[in-house]
Structures are given as C-alpha cells and as structure tokens.
C-alpha cells in the first residue's frame, strides 16, 4: 500500500432497515491531504464518516489506518487511534471549562484526582497550534462564555488531544461568519501541513475549491469519482452530485415591479441598528445583505415584532401597522422564517400536522376543538405544491431530511396566507437539489403576489435569487443594488467602501 495513505476504507457497505445507505464505497486519504466529500443529503457522506469514526459499524468492508486493519467499537476507540470528528452541531459540555472539554474521556489524573495543572498546560499547548484564534482562548474559561467560532476551535482541540492522524469536519462553516471561516481554513491548512489527513464535508462549492486538494463525489450510496481540485470545476461537481445537468442553478429573474407591499421607515433598535428604511414591491424578491452580524436578522425580527423597536414605522400596502408582537405581525400579513429550524422553527418531536397548525390553531378549530381533518388536507396540499417527501402526516417532523423540514416550515407560513414573507437563511444546511427547488418556489410565490425578503449569508444565493438588494452594514442601510449591477463584486465593494469611509471618518475625528 502507498506509504502516503493514512486511511483507507475499502468496499464499505451499510444497510438501514431495508435501504442501502452505502453500496461498497472505497476512499483513500493521504497524509496532509484536504479531501472534500460532496453529495446531496442522503448520498452517504455522513454514514461513511460515521463508520470511519466508529459511531456505528459497517455491514461489510474494511478500514485500514496506516496500513493496518482496524475495528472500532465506539467513537472513543476511533479517537484514541487518532481519528477525530468535528461534528456539525457542536457537542461540548457548556458548563465545564475549555480544558475539561478538550480532554473529556481521558482526563489526566493522579491517584484518581484530576490534575488540573497539566490539564490546562496541555490544553494551552494544543490551542496554541491554532495561531491567534487559539491563543485567545483560555483553558480555564467556561465553554458557555465562548463564541461559536471559538467553541469550534475547542472542538478541534478535542480531536487533537489524542495523537491525531485523521480529522473529519462535517459542514464546519455553517454557523460561522466569513472572517471566522477564513480563520478556520487557516487552522485546517496548518493541521494538514503537519501531516494530518482531513476529510471535509460541505455543501459550499466555493469553500471546497478554495480549501481542498481532492474531491470525492457521492450519490445514492455510491462513490461517483474522486478527482483533483485542479482538474475540475464547480459545474462538473454539482452536476455529478445531482446526477443530471443543472442548467440553471437559479430561476429567471423578474423586472416587473408591482405596487408597494411593505415599507419600513426609520426602524431603530440601538445599538444593533438604526434608521433603517426600505420598501418591497409585489413580484420582486428583495435581499437584505451584509456580513453576518450586520444586523439583518435583528431587523427582520424587529419588523415581525419579535424584538421591540425603539422607533420607526411599518406600512403594509400603504397602511401603517401597529406591530408589537409576532401575532400582530402575522395578522398584518408579515411572516418570518427563522434561520434556526431546529431551535426556533419546528417542534421536532411532534407530527407534521401538529407543526402545521401550531402558528394558527384557531384557523384549524371549530368551537375550540382542533379539526385534524382540515390540517391533514392542508398538509397534503402543501406536500404537492412544495414537493415534500414524507410517509405519513402523522410522523415526527424530526425524522425528515433537512430539505423536507425546511419546505414544511415554509408551508406552515404559507398556510397563514402572508403578504410579506421574510426568509432568514431559507436554504441553510440543505442539499443542492432541494436548494434549487426552494429557489424556484420563491420565484413562483413572488409571481403570485407575495412580497419576499431573503436574508442569506451565501453571497451567490443572494445574487442569484434576488432582484434587488439592500446592503446593510453595522446596523445601517449603506446602499441599494438592482438589476445588471447586482453582482457579488459590487456588494463587496459597497461594504468595503463604506468601511473605508468609516475608518477615515474616525481617523479625521482623531486628528481633528
């Protein structure tokens, strides 16, 4: 076997209650290689990684680490042999210190007592490997006091705490802003330079082409191909992932502009944002764009009455609305799709129907009793309209894939017959196919007369879906871009011009 190969998974097979999750997949990971795994949800990437990291056993096939066959009974076995897994959902003990989290499962002890000194010292030296982003984390700090990006560093440190040879990242940037993601990429490259082999699961083509050396494409439990990043492009990868040519990733844009639907004037909630004004029109998809932390989500929450506003007026179809909570917003016709589906969007332990009626129980009840018949009909209607795949309307919504959950969350809002839909990260964590479907759907809804506002931290999505964008930076509207002008470059330029201006301003202030 090649000396450079640190890990080889050969002919891995896995069934889940009757269906094939993996049909004989073989992958090789070289030392110091950053190896992207791409594929739609359900393609088998996560299953393969879970098998490699000992979460569950394979039905057939073998895994070789440094040329020797290994059998892992649990994730701890795998970690102790040098396979670390940084999960998408951070799995840390929030109430404990950074050091304790890094060494969970193998704390340094002397005579049964935890040796705090060496715990903190070792943690320090692991964190120092990450450069600046690691140095700012103290081993004694409680994890709950850290930002998400720093918590992710702790998660990586945890994987490195036992002599690490292979490190698996599952969509690590899904909750990071661009600056934080760049910091993470630097850390990943540094680890690869040390000879650690890295598997990188992601839906974001850009970051894969920016970061990775090799790409393995998976579809329906099979490996389609493994190729070098230099020899391919995003189009080829995406079309191989979905198994068909995606001619147009984004739907046709529209240039017709109907009457004004929503007007926001002077909306203020200090210190997050102030004096925000913009309008939306029928038949148009508006984007609120800006860096993560610019205040987009906060503005949306404020329009919908979730957070209190300090000043400003909201008009729907020209009428001034008093909106002080989300129920009043819904009555005014404004609905908000949350960015965090699991935490704020759905009752994961409850059925599709129950989720459907949750926001408007009254609409589905007669004399105070809920009619599940009507709810079933409504669910059925949106199933067809949004192409949702599920077995029964009575199954738990948590058992569906991310894409289907996202569609149902949207259906729940559509059932409320909104005039204005504000969608926060409408395609977060769902695969390329479902993404395209949701984009098509947004265009259709917009054509039907619903005014749509999209907030997305994926710049290509904002540019691809929206007809016009309002650019927000540090809580202010700093520009508006529409039509031909609407490109990623233009948005970035608008934001950086503004930031430059601000710097000069503060410089002048200092000088003056």
């Amino acid at each position, binding site marked *: 076997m090649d000396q450079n190969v640190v890990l080889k998974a050969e002919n891995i097979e896995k069934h889940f209650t009757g269906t094939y999750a993996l049909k004989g997949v073989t992958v090789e990971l070289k030392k110091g290689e950053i190896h992207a795994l791409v594929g739609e949800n359900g393609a088998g990437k996560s299953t393969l990684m879970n098998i490699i990291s000992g*979460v569950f056993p394979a039905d057939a096939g073998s895994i070789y680490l440094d040329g020797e066959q290994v059998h892992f009974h*649990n*994730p*701890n*076995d795998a*970690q*102790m042999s040098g396979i670390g897994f940084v999960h998408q959902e951070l*799995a*840390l*003990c*929030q*109430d*404990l210190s950074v050091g*304790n989290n890094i060494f*969970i*499962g*193998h*704390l340094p*002890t002397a005579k*049964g*007592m*935890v040796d*705090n000194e060496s715990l903190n010292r070792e943690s320090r030296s692991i964190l120092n490997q990450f450069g600046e982003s690691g140095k700012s984390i103290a081993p004694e700090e409680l994890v709950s006091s850290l930002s998400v990006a720093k918590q992710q560093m702790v998660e990586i440190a945890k994987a490195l705490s036992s002599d690490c040879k292979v490190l698996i990242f599952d969509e690590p940037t899904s909750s990071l802003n661009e600056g934080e993601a760049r910091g993470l990429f630097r850390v990943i490259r540094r680890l690869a330079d040390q000879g650690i082999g890295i598997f990188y699961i992601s839906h974001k083509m850009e970051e894969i082409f920016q970061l990775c050396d090799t790409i393995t494409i998976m579809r329906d439990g099979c490996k389609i191909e493994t190729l070098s990043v230099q020899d391919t492009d995003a189009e080829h990868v995406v079309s191989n992932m979905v198994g068909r040519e995606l001619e147009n990733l984004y739907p046709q844009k529209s240039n017709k502009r109907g009457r004004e639907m929503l007007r926001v004037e002077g909306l203020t909630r200090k210190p997050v944002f102030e004096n925000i004004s913009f309008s939306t029109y029928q038949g148009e998809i508006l984007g609120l764009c800006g860096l993560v932390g610019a205040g987009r989500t906060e503005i949306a929450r404020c329009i919908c009455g979730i957070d209190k506003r300090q000043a400003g007026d909201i008009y729907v179809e020209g009428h001034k609305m008093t909106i002080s909570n989300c129920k009043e917003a819904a009555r005014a016709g404004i609905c908000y799709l949350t960015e965090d589906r699991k935490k704020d969007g759905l009752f994961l332990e409850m059925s599709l129907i129950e989720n459907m009626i949750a926001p408007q129980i009254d609409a589905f009840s007669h004399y105070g009793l809920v009619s599940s018949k009507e709810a079933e009909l409504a669910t059925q209607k949106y199933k067809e309209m949004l192409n949702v795949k599920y077995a029964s309307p009575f199954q738990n919504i948590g058992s569906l894939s991310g894409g289907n959950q996202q569609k149902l969350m949207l259906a729940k809002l559509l059932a409320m017959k909104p005039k204005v839909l504000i969608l926060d990260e409408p395609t977060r964590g769902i695969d390329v196919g479902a993404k395209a479907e949701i984009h098509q759907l947004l265009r259709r809804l917009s054509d039907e007369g619903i005014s749509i506002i999209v907030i997305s931290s994926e710049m290509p999505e904002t540019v691809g879906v929206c007809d016009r964008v309002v650019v927000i930076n540090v809580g202010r509207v700093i520009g508006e871009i529409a039509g031909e002008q609407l490109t990623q470059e233009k948005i970035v330029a608008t934001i950086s011009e503004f930031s430059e201006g601000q710097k000069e301003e503060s410089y002048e202030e200092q000088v003056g």
Partner: protein
Amino acid sequence: MKSKSDSKGGNSQVSAWKKIRSMKEFSVLVILLVLIVFISIMSPAFLTVTNLRTTAIGFSCNAIIAIAMTLALVSGGFDLSVGSVLGLSAVSVVVLTNNGVSIWLACLVGILVGIICGGINGVLIGYLNLNAFITTLGMQQMARGIVYVLTNGGSIGLQDAAGVEAFRYVGSGSVGNIPVLVIVCLVFVIIGDILVRRSGLARNVFFVGSNEKTAMLSGINTRLVKTMVYVLTGVLSGIAGVLTASRFGTATSSTGSGVEMTVISAAVIGGVSLAGGKGTVAGAVLGVVMMSVISNILVILNVSVHWQNFITGAILILAIIFDVLSNRKKN
C-alpha cells in the same frame, strides 16, 4: 522584570478575588453571615452553645445527604427517595437490634438497605432510561411503605443490648462542646467536597449532566455513571439513617420524611443547577446550613411553626428568581 512579575501577581490576586466573589457559595455565605449577625442582635438566644449545638446536630444528617444529592443534580437527575431510605435504614437498625442482631451488624444492614434502594433506582434510571422523578418517587413510596409496616405506624425504641451505648455515643455524644455527629458530618462534607471538585469519577458526572450524548461519544460509560450516582445517594441516605437512629435511639414511621425536599431546595439555593452540569458540595451544604439557621431564627423569634413551611418555600422561590436574574445580567 521584577515589577512586571509583581503586577502579574497583583492581577492574579484581583482575578482570584473576583472569582471567589462570583461564586455562588460566596453569596450564600454572605447571606448566612448577615442572618447570623441579624439574629444575634435581635436575640441573645442564638449565640449560645446549646442553641448552636442543637442547630448543628439538626442539619448534620441532611448535610451528609446533600453531598450525594449534589451529584444527583449535577448528573441531571435528582433523588426523591432519600428521606424514606433514611427512615428505612433507621428502622432496620432499631428492629434488627431489638431482635437480637448485633448492633454493628445492624448498622451494616442499614447501609446495605441504602445500597439496595439506590442500586434499584440507579439501574432503572441508568440502564432502563426511566424518568428519575417517577422512579425515585416510586422508591420513596415503597421504602416509606416498609417503614410503616415495620413500625406499625408508630415508633420503636432501641432496646439496650451489647454495644448500644457505644453506638448511641456517635449520635448523641460530644467531644468537649462539639457533638460527635457534627464532627462526623464535617469529615464527610470535607472529603465529599474535595472528591466532587477534583476526582476524575465525579468529573464524569459533570460531563454526563452537561451533555450526555457528548459524554457517551467520548467513551464515558454514562449508564454506569448515572447508576452509581443513585447508589451513592442510597448509601449516604443509609448512613444518615444509621446516624439518625444513633441520635434519637428510636425510629418512627415518619423518620426522614420531607428530607428530600429540604435537601434539594438547599442545594438549589447553594447554586447547584437543576438542569445538571453545575454545582458544588460546599454550596449545597451551605444551603442546608442556611435553611436550618432560618428555621432556628423563626423559632427564636417565636414565629408559629405553621409559618415555617411558607417561609422556606418563599426563600426557595426567591433564590431561583435571584439566580435567573443574575444569569440574565451576565448575558
């Protein structure tokens, strides 16, 4: 160079002081001291040797149980059966001794009763994944039921036999002015606090309580950890039962009833999180001490016994409100 290291030392002193001040134990301690100063001014009856002795003896058994309850709460559960198990252990000691079993053997049986009850709780909660509330509530009823059967609903006195006098010395004797029971309690609390803070086994309980799935994925045997937590509450309840029998020389059908609520309330007041993952033995024990000082104050001030429940409950709710508000401020 020297000045640099000096300033660093100063900084770490400041941050250590800050750390101490931010600890929950500290605020409980301050409130406790304020209460003590207040009652000492109000009445000379508080700061007397007799009163302090009675109060300390009164909370000793609860304090021992609080050690284990801290871990149960940290693990994300709790144990409602501790009071009944305490009662059952005390009754077992008295009944066995009266029936001719050696007093020391009877004590072992009392502790064994705790291990068995705790073991059953632990296996049901840890391995069968039953809800801790229901399981320990059931155990509370079962243990109390046996207590009623054994005592016939009344009380049984410990009859004189070989070793009984020595046995009674533990619960009611003194070294100088300090009751032996209080010394025993202090030894337990100090060892318990150190172990919970520092030992690797206890740290695993924190991991489990903070994030069970992560703990499991990290190779911690979460089931065993949870089981052992309830075995520990059982053992310490058993020991507290033996000490109670030693203290009173009798066991009644109501021995130990209500202890679970006192101890859980005290732990929460002392900063142990009901959500798991957070807490110290020192905090929980300070909570126990505070609760019993408060009821002592009520007695001294001649407040009707009937009002005491009300006030204890109100203090518990105030403690939680205070906790929530201070957390909100931090965020």
